Protein backbone atom coordinates (compact mmCIF):
# COMPACT_ATOMS: atom_id res chain seq x y z
CA UNK A 1 0.00 0.00 0.00
CA UNK A 2 1.34 3.38 -0.98
CA UNK A 3 1.81 6.03 1.68
CA UNK A 4 -0.46 8.23 -0.44
CA UNK A 5 -3.35 5.80 0.07
CA UNK A 6 -3.34 6.42 3.83
CA UNK A 7 -4.88 9.78 2.90
CA UNK A 8 -7.89 8.14 1.23
CA UNK A 9 -9.03 5.65 3.84
CA UNK A 10 -10.74 5.66 7.18
CA UNK A 11 -12.46 3.13 9.44
CA UNK A 12 -14.99 1.01 7.50
CA UNK A 13 -17.37 0.65 10.45
CA UNK A 14 -20.64 2.51 9.73
CA UNK A 15 -20.82 4.03 13.22
CA UNK A 16 -17.39 5.62 12.70
CA UNK A 17 -18.21 7.25 9.34
CA UNK A 18 -19.27 10.55 10.85
CA UNK A 19 -16.64 10.62 13.57
CA UNK A 20 -13.69 12.96 13.01
CA UNK A 21 -11.36 10.57 14.75
CA UNK A 22 -11.89 7.70 12.30
CA UNK A 23 -9.62 9.50 9.79
CA UNK A 24 -6.73 9.15 9.43
CA UNK A 25 -6.16 5.74 10.95
CA UNK A 26 -3.30 5.26 13.36
CA UNK A 27 -0.39 3.34 11.85
CA UNK A 28 1.63 0.96 14.04
CA UNK A 29 4.30 -1.69 13.62
CA UNK A 30 4.69 -0.80 9.95
CA UNK A 31 7.32 -2.36 7.75
CA UNK A 32 8.21 0.06 4.96
CA UNK A 33 9.86 -0.58 1.60
CA UNK A 34 10.94 1.87 -1.08
CA UNK A 35 9.82 1.12 -4.61
CA UNK A 36 11.30 3.18 -7.41
CA UNK A 37 8.70 4.98 -9.52
CA UNK A 38 8.95 7.48 -12.31
CA UNK A 39 8.89 11.06 -10.96
CA UNK A 40 5.87 12.93 -12.29
CA UNK A 41 5.72 16.43 -10.82
CA UNK A 42 2.34 17.29 -12.43
CA UNK A 43 0.80 14.23 -10.80
CA UNK A 44 2.01 15.32 -7.37
CA UNK A 45 0.82 18.89 -7.80
CA UNK A 46 -2.57 17.55 -8.87
CA UNK A 47 -2.73 15.19 -5.88
CA UNK A 48 -1.61 17.88 -3.44
CA UNK A 49 -4.72 19.88 -4.26
CA UNK A 50 -6.85 17.00 -3.09
CA UNK A 51 -4.84 15.80 -0.15
CA UNK A 52 -5.87 16.34 3.44
CA UNK A 53 -2.57 17.78 4.61
CA UNK A 54 -2.99 17.54 8.36
CA UNK A 55 -3.86 13.85 8.02
CA UNK A 56 -0.73 13.37 5.92
CA UNK A 57 1.44 15.01 8.58
CA UNK A 58 -0.16 12.86 11.27
CA UNK A 59 0.44 9.58 9.45
CA UNK A 60 4.00 10.59 8.55
CA UNK A 61 4.59 11.14 12.26
CA UNK A 62 3.15 7.67 13.05
CA UNK A 63 5.72 6.28 10.67
CA UNK A 64 8.60 8.24 12.18
CA UNK A 65 8.82 11.15 9.74
CA UNK A 66 8.66 14.56 11.46
CA UNK A 67 9.96 16.59 8.52
CA UNK A 68 6.71 17.70 6.90
CA UNK A 69 5.73 21.35 7.28
CA UNK A 70 2.50 21.91 9.21
CA UNK A 71 0.95 23.92 6.34
CA UNK A 72 0.32 22.48 2.89
CA UNK A 73 3.01 23.92 0.56
CA UNK A 74 2.03 25.65 -2.68
CA UNK A 75 4.36 24.19 -5.27
CA UNK A 76 5.11 25.03 -8.86
CA UNK A 77 6.96 22.41 -10.93
CA UNK A 78 8.62 25.18 -12.95
CA UNK A 79 10.48 26.51 -9.89
CA UNK A 80 13.73 24.68 -9.16
CA UNK A 81 13.39 24.83 -5.38
CA UNK A 82 9.85 23.51 -5.59
CA UNK A 83 11.00 20.55 -7.68
CA UNK A 84 13.29 19.48 -4.85
CA UNK A 85 10.34 19.50 -2.43
CA UNK A 86 8.20 17.66 -4.99
CA UNK A 87 10.91 15.00 -5.28
CA UNK A 88 10.84 14.53 -1.51
CA UNK A 89 7.07 14.25 -1.60
CA UNK A 90 7.30 11.78 -4.49
CA UNK A 91 9.68 9.73 -2.44
CA UNK A 92 7.30 9.74 0.53
CA UNK A 93 3.86 9.52 -1.12
CA UNK A 94 4.49 7.34 -4.14
CA UNK A 95 7.67 5.39 -3.52
CA UNK A 96 7.14 4.54 0.13
CA UNK A 97 5.12 1.37 0.48
CA UNK A 98 3.75 -0.13 3.65
CA UNK A 99 4.46 -3.83 3.26
CA UNK A 100 3.01 -5.01 6.55
CA UNK A 101 1.50 -3.25 9.52
CA UNK A 102 -1.49 -2.29 11.62
CA UNK A 103 -4.06 0.45 11.11
CA UNK A 104 -6.13 1.34 14.15
CA UNK A 105 -9.30 3.38 14.29
CA UNK A 106 -8.96 6.20 16.81
CA UNK A 107 -12.72 6.12 17.33
CA UNK A 108 -13.67 2.47 17.85
CA UNK A 109 -10.25 0.89 18.29
CA UNK A 110 -10.74 -1.72 15.58
CA UNK A 111 -7.50 -3.03 14.12
CA UNK A 112 -6.97 -3.52 10.37
CA UNK A 113 -3.92 -5.23 8.94
CA UNK A 114 -1.79 -4.58 5.90
CA UNK A 115 -0.43 -7.83 4.55
CA UNK A 116 1.98 -8.12 1.64
CA UNK A 117 1.28 -4.52 0.76
CA UNK A 118 -2.51 -4.95 0.55
CA UNK A 119 -4.64 -3.39 3.31
CA UNK A 120 -7.55 -5.49 4.55
CA UNK A 121 -10.74 -3.62 5.46
CA UNK A 122 -13.04 -6.63 5.78
CA UNK A 123 -15.06 -6.43 8.98
CA UNK A 124 -16.02 -9.12 11.49
CA UNK A 125 -19.80 -9.80 11.55
CA UNK A 126 -20.58 -7.75 14.67
CA UNK A 127 -19.17 -4.60 13.05
CA UNK A 128 -20.99 -4.95 9.71
CA UNK A 129 -23.80 -2.57 8.71
Amino acid at each position, binding site marked *: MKFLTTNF*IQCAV*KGCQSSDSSFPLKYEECELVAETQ*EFKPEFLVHMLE*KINWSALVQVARDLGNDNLPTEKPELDPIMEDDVLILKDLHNLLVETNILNGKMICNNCGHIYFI*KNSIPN*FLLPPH*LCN
Partner: protein
Amino acid sequence: MKDYLIYFAQAYPNFRRAELESLAHYHGINIDLSHHSETSPFLIVQLENDEQARKIMERSVLSRGIYELWGQGNTLEELHQSVKDNDNGKFELYNKSSFKFDFIGYMGRRNNKQKFEMIESFQFLAFEGPIRMKNPDEVYTILEEYEVMDREKATTPIKMWFGREIQLSARCNNVLDKYDLKSRKYIGTTSFDAELALVTCNIAEVGPKKIVYDPFTGTGSFLVAASNYGGLTIGSDIDVRILRGKGDVNIKSNFKQYGTTTEFLDILTMDFTNNAFRQDFFIDTIVCDPPYGVREGLKVCGAKNEEKAAGRENVVINGEKAHLRRDFIQPKKPYELSNLLDDLLKFSASRLPVNGRLAFWMPTANDDFEINQIPQHENLELLYNLEQEFNKWSRRLLVYVKRDEDYKGVTKNGLKENNIKNFRDRYFRGFSEKSK
Protein backbone atom coordinates in the same frame (compact mmCIF):
# COMPACT_ATOMS: atom_id res chain seq x y z
CA MET B 1 -18.38 23.59 -40.22
CA LYS B 2 -16.85 20.99 -42.52
CA ASP B 3 -17.95 17.54 -43.55
CA TYR B 4 -16.03 14.58 -42.18
CA LEU B 5 -16.55 10.92 -42.90
CA ILE B 6 -16.32 8.41 -40.08
CA TYR B 7 -15.61 4.78 -40.88
CA PHE B 8 -16.75 2.45 -38.10
CA ALA B 9 -15.45 -0.99 -37.13
CA GLN B 10 -17.70 -3.97 -37.55
CA ALA B 11 -18.09 -4.55 -33.82
CA TYR B 12 -20.85 -3.76 -31.32
CA PRO B 13 -22.70 -1.37 -33.66
CA ASN B 14 -25.18 -0.46 -30.89
CA PHE B 15 -22.32 0.89 -28.73
CA ARG B 16 -20.76 3.08 -31.45
CA ARG B 17 -22.84 6.19 -31.05
CA ALA B 18 -22.47 6.27 -27.26
CA GLU B 19 -18.71 5.94 -27.56
CA LEU B 20 -18.28 8.78 -30.05
CA GLU B 21 -20.78 11.02 -28.28
CA SER B 22 -18.93 10.52 -25.01
CA LEU B 23 -15.51 11.16 -26.57
CA ALA B 24 -16.87 14.36 -28.12
CA HIS B 25 -18.46 15.42 -24.83
CA TYR B 26 -15.23 14.67 -22.98
CA HIS B 27 -13.39 17.09 -25.28
CA GLY B 28 -16.19 19.68 -25.16
CA ILE B 29 -17.05 19.18 -28.84
CA ASN B 30 -20.57 19.48 -30.19
CA ILE B 31 -21.45 16.73 -32.62
CA ASP B 32 -24.76 15.57 -34.02
CA LEU B 33 -24.87 11.79 -34.40
CA SER B 34 -28.64 11.43 -34.47
CA HIS B 35 -28.52 10.14 -38.07
CA HIS B 36 -26.17 7.30 -37.13
CA SER B 37 -27.38 3.93 -38.35
CA GLU B 38 -26.29 0.64 -36.84
CA THR B 39 -26.44 -1.00 -40.26
CA SER B 40 -24.00 1.30 -42.03
CA PRO B 41 -20.31 1.65 -41.16
CA PHE B 42 -20.09 5.05 -42.88
CA LEU B 43 -21.28 8.27 -41.30
CA ILE B 44 -20.89 11.88 -42.39
CA VAL B 45 -20.64 14.38 -39.53
CA GLN B 46 -20.04 18.11 -39.26
CA LEU B 47 -17.11 19.38 -37.24
CA GLU B 48 -15.35 22.71 -36.96
CA ASN B 49 -11.85 21.55 -37.83
CA ASP B 50 -9.32 18.71 -38.08
CA GLU B 51 -8.35 19.18 -34.45
CA GLN B 52 -11.87 18.22 -33.33
CA ALA B 53 -11.87 15.25 -35.68
CA ARG B 54 -8.55 14.10 -34.30
CA LYS B 55 -9.76 14.39 -30.71
CA ILE B 56 -12.93 12.35 -31.10
CA MET B 57 -11.17 9.61 -33.09
CA GLU B 58 -7.89 9.12 -31.28
CA ARG B 59 -9.24 7.02 -28.38
CA SER B 60 -12.06 5.32 -30.22
CA VAL B 61 -12.30 1.54 -30.12
CA LEU B 62 -15.41 1.05 -32.24
CA SER B 63 -14.39 3.36 -35.09
CA ARG B 64 -11.56 2.92 -37.53
CA GLY B 65 -10.86 6.40 -38.81
CA ILE B 66 -12.06 9.86 -39.74
CA TYR B 67 -11.53 11.63 -43.07
CA GLU B 68 -12.01 15.15 -44.32
CA LEU B 69 -14.65 14.53 -46.96
CA TRP B 70 -13.65 15.77 -50.43
CA GLY B 71 -16.41 14.15 -52.42
CA GLN B 72 -18.89 11.31 -52.77
CA GLY B 73 -20.90 9.58 -55.46
CA ASN B 74 -22.53 6.40 -56.58
CA THR B 75 -20.10 5.94 -59.47
CA LEU B 76 -16.50 6.89 -60.11
CA GLU B 77 -17.64 9.63 -62.50
CA GLU B 78 -19.94 11.10 -59.87
CA LEU B 79 -17.13 10.91 -57.32
CA HIS B 80 -14.72 12.75 -59.66
CA GLN B 81 -17.31 15.45 -60.28
CA SER B 82 -18.09 15.82 -56.60
CA VAL B 83 -14.40 16.16 -55.69
CA LYS B 84 -13.96 18.81 -58.43
CA ASP B 85 -17.06 20.70 -57.30
CA ASN B 86 -15.89 20.78 -53.69
CA ASP B 87 -12.35 21.92 -54.46
CA ASN B 88 -12.61 25.39 -52.86
CA GLY B 89 -8.85 25.77 -53.13
CA LYS B 90 -8.13 22.54 -51.23
CA PHE B 91 -6.05 20.99 -54.02
CA GLU B 92 -3.72 23.98 -53.94
CA LEU B 93 -3.29 23.68 -50.17
CA TYR B 94 -1.81 20.18 -50.37
CA ASN B 95 -0.16 20.64 -53.76
CA LYS B 96 3.41 20.18 -52.55
CA SER B 97 2.81 17.65 -49.75
CA SER B 98 4.08 14.09 -50.02
CA PHE B 99 1.20 11.65 -50.26
CA LYS B 100 -0.12 8.21 -50.92
CA PHE B 101 -3.47 6.64 -51.72
CA ASP B 102 -5.29 4.13 -49.58
CA PHE B 103 -8.37 2.00 -50.25
CA ILE B 104 -11.10 0.85 -47.89
CA GLY B 105 -13.74 -1.52 -49.21
CA TYR B 106 -16.77 -2.58 -47.22
CA MET B 107 -18.20 -5.94 -48.40
CA GLY B 108 -15.96 -5.94 -51.43
CA ARG B 109 -12.60 -4.81 -52.73
CA ARG B 110 -10.46 -4.11 -55.76
CA ASN B 111 -7.36 -5.83 -57.05
CA ASN B 112 -4.08 -3.98 -57.47
CA LYS B 113 -4.59 -3.31 -61.17
CA GLN B 114 -7.97 -1.69 -60.52
CA LYS B 115 -6.53 0.33 -57.63
CA PHE B 116 -3.76 1.61 -59.85
CA GLU B 117 -6.25 2.66 -62.52
CA MET B 118 -8.33 4.38 -59.93
CA ILE B 119 -5.37 6.39 -58.58
CA GLU B 120 -4.53 7.41 -62.17
CA SER B 121 -8.08 8.62 -62.63
CA PHE B 122 -7.52 11.26 -59.94
CA GLN B 123 -4.72 12.92 -61.90
CA PHE B 124 -6.85 16.05 -62.15
CA LEU B 125 -5.87 16.81 -58.57
CA ALA B 126 -2.47 17.62 -60.07
CA PHE B 127 -0.50 16.96 -56.88
CA GLU B 128 3.17 17.80 -57.39
CA GLY B 129 4.46 16.39 -54.08
CA PRO B 130 6.36 13.09 -54.00
CA ILE B 131 4.54 9.80 -53.50
CA ARG B 132 5.70 8.26 -50.26
CA MET B 133 4.46 4.91 -49.02
CA LYS B 134 5.93 5.39 -45.54
CA ASN B 135 4.89 8.38 -43.43
CA PRO B 136 3.55 10.61 -46.17
CA ASP B 137 2.25 14.05 -45.22
CA GLU B 138 -1.20 13.16 -46.48
CA VAL B 139 -3.10 9.94 -47.09
CA TYR B 140 -5.97 10.16 -49.58
CA THR B 141 -8.45 7.39 -49.04
CA ILE B 142 -11.05 6.02 -51.39
CA LEU B 143 -13.78 4.36 -49.36
CA GLU B 144 -16.27 2.09 -51.10
CA GLU B 145 -19.39 0.31 -50.04
CA TYR B 146 -20.43 -2.81 -51.93
CA GLU B 147 -23.68 -4.68 -51.71
CA VAL B 148 -23.51 -8.45 -51.63
CA MET B 149 -26.46 -10.28 -53.17
CA ASP B 150 -26.82 -13.95 -52.33
CA ARG B 151 -23.42 -15.53 -52.58
CA GLU B 152 -22.03 -13.67 -55.51
CA LYS B 153 -19.03 -11.50 -55.09
CA ALA B 154 -19.85 -7.84 -55.56
CA THR B 155 -17.79 -6.22 -58.28
CA THR B 156 -19.10 -2.65 -58.43
CA PRO B 157 -19.50 -0.44 -55.40
CA ILE B 158 -22.86 1.18 -54.70
CA LYS B 159 -21.35 4.19 -52.94
CA MET B 160 -17.93 5.85 -52.98
CA TRP B 161 -16.24 8.54 -50.91
CA PHE B 162 -12.95 10.40 -51.29
CA GLY B 163 -11.33 11.75 -48.16
CA ARG B 164 -8.12 13.04 -46.64
CA GLU B 165 -7.19 10.93 -43.64
CA ILE B 166 -7.25 12.94 -40.43
CA GLN B 167 -6.90 10.34 -37.71
CA LEU B 168 -6.99 6.59 -37.36
CA SER B 169 -8.56 5.20 -34.19
CA ALA B 170 -6.95 3.49 -31.20
CA ARG B 171 -8.31 0.27 -32.70
CA CYS B 172 -6.35 0.81 -35.92
CA ASN B 173 -3.31 1.52 -33.78
CA ASN B 174 -3.61 -1.98 -32.31
CA VAL B 175 -4.97 -1.20 -28.86
CA LEU B 176 -6.91 -4.47 -28.94
CA ASP B 177 -3.80 -6.57 -29.61
CA LYS B 178 -2.00 -4.75 -26.86
CA TYR B 179 -4.68 -5.48 -24.24
CA ASP B 180 -5.73 -8.90 -25.54
CA LEU B 181 -6.38 -11.18 -22.56
CA LYS B 182 -4.44 -13.94 -24.35
CA SER B 183 -1.20 -12.08 -23.87
CA ARG B 184 -2.03 -10.52 -20.48
CA LYS B 185 0.09 -12.08 -17.76
CA TYR B 186 -2.42 -12.02 -14.89
CA ILE B 187 -5.98 -13.01 -15.71
CA GLY B 188 -8.73 -15.04 -14.05
CA THR B 189 -12.15 -16.52 -14.79
CA THR B 190 -13.78 -13.12 -14.24
CA SER B 191 -11.40 -11.07 -16.41
CA PHE B 192 -13.36 -8.73 -18.66
CA ASP B 193 -12.58 -8.69 -22.36
CA ALA B 194 -10.35 -5.81 -23.37
CA GLU B 195 -12.46 -4.39 -26.19
CA LEU B 196 -15.58 -3.75 -24.10
CA ALA B 197 -13.54 -2.68 -21.07
CA LEU B 198 -11.89 0.01 -23.21
CA VAL B 199 -15.26 1.05 -24.65
CA THR B 200 -16.67 1.24 -21.11
CA CYS B 201 -13.84 3.59 -20.10
CA ASN B 202 -14.44 5.79 -23.16
CA ILE B 203 -18.15 6.10 -22.40
CA ALA B 204 -17.38 6.73 -18.72
CA GLU B 205 -15.12 9.62 -19.83
CA VAL B 206 -12.03 8.31 -18.10
CA GLY B 207 -9.05 10.60 -18.68
CA PRO B 208 -5.73 11.93 -17.37
CA LYS B 209 -5.82 13.25 -13.79
CA LYS B 210 -9.20 11.66 -13.16
CA ILE B 211 -9.48 9.21 -10.29
CA VAL B 212 -11.15 6.03 -11.47
CA TYR B 213 -12.52 3.54 -8.95
CA ASP B 214 -13.51 -0.06 -9.60
CA PRO B 215 -15.22 -1.47 -6.48
CA PHE B 216 -15.19 -5.02 -7.91
CA THR B 217 -11.67 -5.09 -9.24
CA GLY B 218 -11.08 -8.83 -9.65
CA THR B 219 -7.96 -9.19 -11.80
CA GLY B 220 -8.07 -5.48 -12.63
CA SER B 221 -9.48 -5.58 -16.19
CA PHE B 222 -11.12 -2.17 -15.89
CA LEU B 223 -8.19 -0.65 -14.06
CA VAL B 224 -5.70 -1.42 -16.83
CA ALA B 225 -8.18 -0.28 -19.48
CA ALA B 226 -8.68 3.00 -17.60
CA SER B 227 -4.94 3.49 -17.21
CA ASN B 228 -4.58 3.23 -21.00
CA TYR B 229 -6.46 6.52 -21.16
CA GLY B 230 -4.46 8.10 -18.37
CA GLY B 231 -6.98 7.49 -15.57
CA LEU B 232 -5.52 7.26 -12.05
CA THR B 233 -6.85 3.94 -10.92
CA ILE B 234 -7.77 2.53 -7.55
CA GLY B 235 -9.59 -0.72 -6.96
CA SER B 236 -11.09 -2.84 -4.25
CA ASP B 237 -12.38 -6.38 -4.01
CA ILE B 238 -13.71 -8.58 -1.24
CA ASP B 239 -11.48 -11.45 -2.36
CA VAL B 240 -7.91 -10.90 -1.25
CA ARG B 241 -6.62 -13.91 -3.19
CA ILE B 242 -7.57 -12.45 -6.53
CA LEU B 243 -5.96 -9.11 -5.63
CA ARG B 244 -2.79 -10.82 -4.47
CA GLY B 245 -2.29 -12.99 -7.56
CA LYS B 246 0.51 -15.54 -7.62
CA GLY B 247 4.01 -14.49 -6.72
CA ASP B 248 5.11 -11.80 -9.13
CA VAL B 249 2.07 -12.27 -11.36
CA ASN B 250 -0.66 -9.92 -10.16
CA ILE B 251 -2.55 -6.73 -10.94
CA LYS B 252 0.55 -4.61 -10.43
CA SER B 253 2.55 -6.71 -12.87
CA ASN B 254 -0.16 -6.16 -15.50
CA PHE B 255 0.37 -2.42 -15.14
CA LYS B 256 4.09 -3.04 -15.58
CA GLN B 257 3.40 -5.07 -18.70
CA TYR B 258 1.48 -2.15 -20.22
CA GLY B 259 3.86 0.54 -19.02
CA THR B 260 1.22 2.34 -16.97
CA THR B 261 2.52 1.89 -13.39
CA THR B 262 2.30 5.63 -12.79
CA GLU B 263 -1.46 5.39 -13.34
CA PHE B 264 -1.81 2.70 -10.68
CA LEU B 265 -2.72 4.10 -7.27
CA ASP B 266 -3.57 1.06 -5.16
CA ILE B 267 -5.76 -1.94 -4.49
CA LEU B 268 -7.55 -2.67 -1.23
CA THR B 269 -9.28 -5.70 0.20
CA MET B 270 -12.69 -4.29 0.99
CA ASP B 271 -16.35 -5.22 1.09
CA PHE B 272 -17.98 -2.54 -1.06
CA THR B 273 -20.98 -2.38 1.28
CA ASN B 274 -18.68 -1.57 4.22
CA ASN B 275 -16.59 1.01 2.44
CA ALA B 276 -13.41 2.48 3.91
CA PHE B 277 -12.87 5.45 1.61
CA ARG B 278 -13.13 8.65 3.60
CA GLN B 279 -16.36 10.55 2.99
CA ASP B 280 -14.76 13.36 1.01
CA PHE B 281 -12.40 11.20 -1.01
CA PHE B 282 -12.41 12.52 -4.58
CA ILE B 283 -13.54 9.84 -7.04
CA ASP B 284 -14.19 11.18 -10.55
CA THR B 285 -15.43 8.06 -12.30
CA ILE B 286 -16.68 4.62 -11.31
CA VAL B 287 -16.43 1.71 -13.74
CA CYS B 288 -17.14 -1.89 -12.87
CA ASP B 289 -18.63 -5.27 -13.61
CA PRO B 290 -20.42 -6.16 -10.36
CA PRO B 291 -20.24 -9.84 -9.40
CA TYR B 292 -23.56 -11.27 -10.44
CA GLY B 293 -22.64 -14.51 -8.89
CA VAL B 294 -22.42 -16.91 -11.80
CA ARG B 295 -18.85 -17.96 -11.09
CA GLU B 296 -19.31 -17.67 -7.36
CA GLY B 297 -22.29 -16.67 -5.27
CA LEU B 298 -22.38 -12.97 -4.44
CA LYS B 299 -21.07 -12.34 -0.92
CA VAL B 300 -20.50 -9.54 1.54
CA CYS B 301 -19.04 -9.52 5.05
CA GLY B 302 -21.28 -10.84 7.81
CA ALA B 303 -22.45 -14.01 9.50
CA LYS B 304 -24.64 -16.39 7.51
CA ASN B 305 -26.40 -17.41 10.66
CA GLU B 306 -26.58 -14.47 13.05
CA GLU B 307 -27.93 -16.46 15.99
CA LYS B 308 -25.09 -18.94 15.82
CA ALA B 309 -22.54 -16.16 15.46
CA ALA B 310 -23.82 -14.15 18.41
CA GLY B 311 -21.20 -13.56 21.07
CA ARG B 312 -18.28 -14.58 18.86
CA GLU B 313 -16.85 -11.09 19.19
CA ASN B 314 -15.89 -12.08 22.70
CA VAL B 315 -13.81 -15.10 21.71
CA VAL B 316 -10.23 -14.75 22.94
CA ILE B 317 -7.21 -16.57 21.56
CA ASN B 318 -3.84 -16.27 23.34
CA GLY B 319 -5.06 -13.25 25.25
CA GLU B 320 -6.19 -11.41 22.08
CA LYS B 321 -9.71 -10.90 20.78
CA ALA B 322 -9.97 -13.35 17.90
CA HIS B 323 -11.39 -10.82 15.43
CA LEU B 324 -8.48 -8.44 16.08
CA ARG B 325 -5.80 -11.00 15.22
CA ARG B 326 -3.80 -10.78 12.04
CA ASP B 327 -4.88 -14.19 10.81
CA PHE B 328 -8.63 -13.75 11.48
CA ILE B 329 -10.73 -14.61 8.45
CA GLN B 330 -13.85 -12.47 8.19
CA PRO B 331 -16.94 -14.62 7.50
CA LYS B 332 -19.06 -13.85 4.41
CA LYS B 333 -22.77 -14.12 3.83
CA PRO B 334 -24.81 -14.26 0.61
CA TYR B 335 -26.16 -10.96 -0.73
CA GLU B 336 -28.62 -10.05 -3.44
CA LEU B 337 -27.56 -8.42 -6.68
CA SER B 338 -30.50 -5.99 -6.55
CA ASN B 339 -29.30 -4.70 -3.17
CA LEU B 340 -25.72 -4.47 -4.32
CA LEU B 341 -26.72 -2.37 -7.34
CA ASP B 342 -28.76 -0.19 -5.03
CA ASP B 343 -25.67 0.31 -2.86
CA LEU B 344 -23.60 1.08 -5.95
CA LEU B 345 -25.98 3.81 -7.11
CA LYS B 346 -26.25 5.30 -3.64
CA PHE B 347 -22.48 5.36 -3.25
CA SER B 348 -22.00 6.91 -6.69
CA ALA B 349 -24.66 9.54 -6.07
CA SER B 350 -22.96 10.63 -2.86
CA ARG B 351 -19.32 10.40 -3.99
CA LEU B 352 -19.19 11.45 -7.66
CA PRO B 353 -18.76 15.11 -8.60
CA VAL B 354 -21.53 16.74 -10.66
CA ASN B 355 -21.15 15.46 -14.24
CA GLY B 356 -19.09 12.48 -13.04
CA ARG B 357 -20.07 9.18 -14.59
CA LEU B 358 -20.88 5.72 -13.27
CA ALA B 359 -20.66 2.86 -15.78
CA PHE B 360 -21.39 -0.74 -14.89
CA TRP B 361 -22.60 -3.97 -16.45
CA MET B 362 -25.85 -5.62 -15.39
CA PRO B 363 -27.05 -9.07 -16.45
CA THR B 364 -30.67 -9.56 -17.49
CA ALA B 365 -32.70 -12.55 -18.67
CA ASN B 366 -34.08 -11.95 -22.16
CA ASP B 367 -37.52 -13.49 -21.56
CA ASP B 368 -38.60 -11.14 -18.78
CA PHE B 369 -36.53 -7.99 -19.19
CA GLU B 370 -38.34 -4.70 -19.09
CA ILE B 371 -36.81 -1.28 -19.01
CA ASN B 372 -38.23 -0.52 -15.56
CA GLN B 373 -35.92 -3.13 -14.03
CA ILE B 374 -32.98 -0.82 -14.47
CA PRO B 375 -32.06 0.63 -11.07
CA GLN B 376 -32.45 4.37 -10.66
CA HIS B 377 -31.29 7.02 -8.24
CA GLU B 378 -32.77 10.50 -7.93
CA ASN B 379 -29.40 12.24 -8.40
CA LEU B 380 -28.23 10.10 -11.30
CA GLU B 381 -29.47 10.39 -14.85
CA LEU B 382 -29.35 7.23 -16.93
CA LEU B 383 -27.53 8.19 -20.14
CA TYR B 384 -27.09 4.84 -21.86
CA ASN B 385 -28.47 1.32 -21.67
CA LEU B 386 -26.42 -0.67 -24.17
CA GLU B 387 -27.15 -4.33 -24.65
CA GLN B 388 -24.76 -7.12 -25.49
CA GLU B 389 -26.98 -10.05 -26.26
CA PHE B 390 -26.20 -13.70 -25.69
CA ASN B 391 -28.56 -16.56 -26.29
CA LYS B 392 -30.95 -16.38 -23.35
CA TRP B 393 -29.52 -13.51 -21.43
CA SER B 394 -27.86 -10.20 -22.01
CA ARG B 395 -25.52 -7.97 -20.20
CA ARG B 396 -26.15 -4.27 -20.36
CA LEU B 397 -23.72 -1.45 -20.00
CA LEU B 398 -25.57 1.12 -17.90
CA VAL B 399 -24.07 4.59 -17.81
CA TYR B 400 -25.29 7.26 -15.41
CA VAL B 401 -24.22 10.82 -14.84
CA LYS B 402 -24.40 12.63 -11.51
CA ARG B 403 -26.57 15.74 -11.78
CA ASP B 404 -26.80 18.81 -9.56
CA GLU B 405 -29.59 19.57 -7.04
CA ASP B 406 -31.88 20.91 -9.76
CA TYR B 407 -32.18 17.46 -11.27
CA LYS B 408 -35.18 15.54 -9.98
CA GLY B 409 -35.05 11.86 -10.78
CA VAL B 410 -36.61 8.90 -9.03
CA THR B 411 -35.01 6.34 -6.79
CA LYS B 412 -36.04 2.75 -7.31
CA ASN B 413 -34.78 -0.77 -7.04
CA GLY B 414 -36.24 -2.06 -10.30
CA LEU B 415 -35.18 -5.67 -9.86
CA LYS B 416 -36.79 -5.92 -6.46
CA GLU B 417 -39.97 -3.98 -7.31
CA ASN B 418 -40.60 -6.27 -10.26
CA ASN B 419 -39.87 -9.41 -8.28
CA ILE B 420 -37.11 -10.40 -10.66
CA LYS B 421 -35.55 -13.69 -9.59
CA ASN B 422 -31.91 -13.77 -8.76
CA PHE B 423 -29.98 -13.81 -12.03
CA ARG B 424 -27.81 -16.65 -10.79
CA ASP B 425 -30.77 -18.92 -10.03
CA ARG B 426 -32.22 -18.39 -13.49
CA TYR B 427 -28.83 -18.84 -15.16
CA PHE B 428 -28.32 -22.25 -13.61
CA ARG B 429 -31.81 -23.37 -14.60
CA GLY B 430 -31.24 -22.44 -18.22
CA PHE B 431 -33.73 -19.54 -17.96
CA SER B 432 -36.62 -22.00 -18.05
CA GLU B 433 -40.22 -20.77 -17.64
CA LYS B 434 -40.36 -22.45 -14.24
CA SER B 435 -37.38 -20.52 -12.97
CA LYS B 436 -39.03 -17.12 -13.59
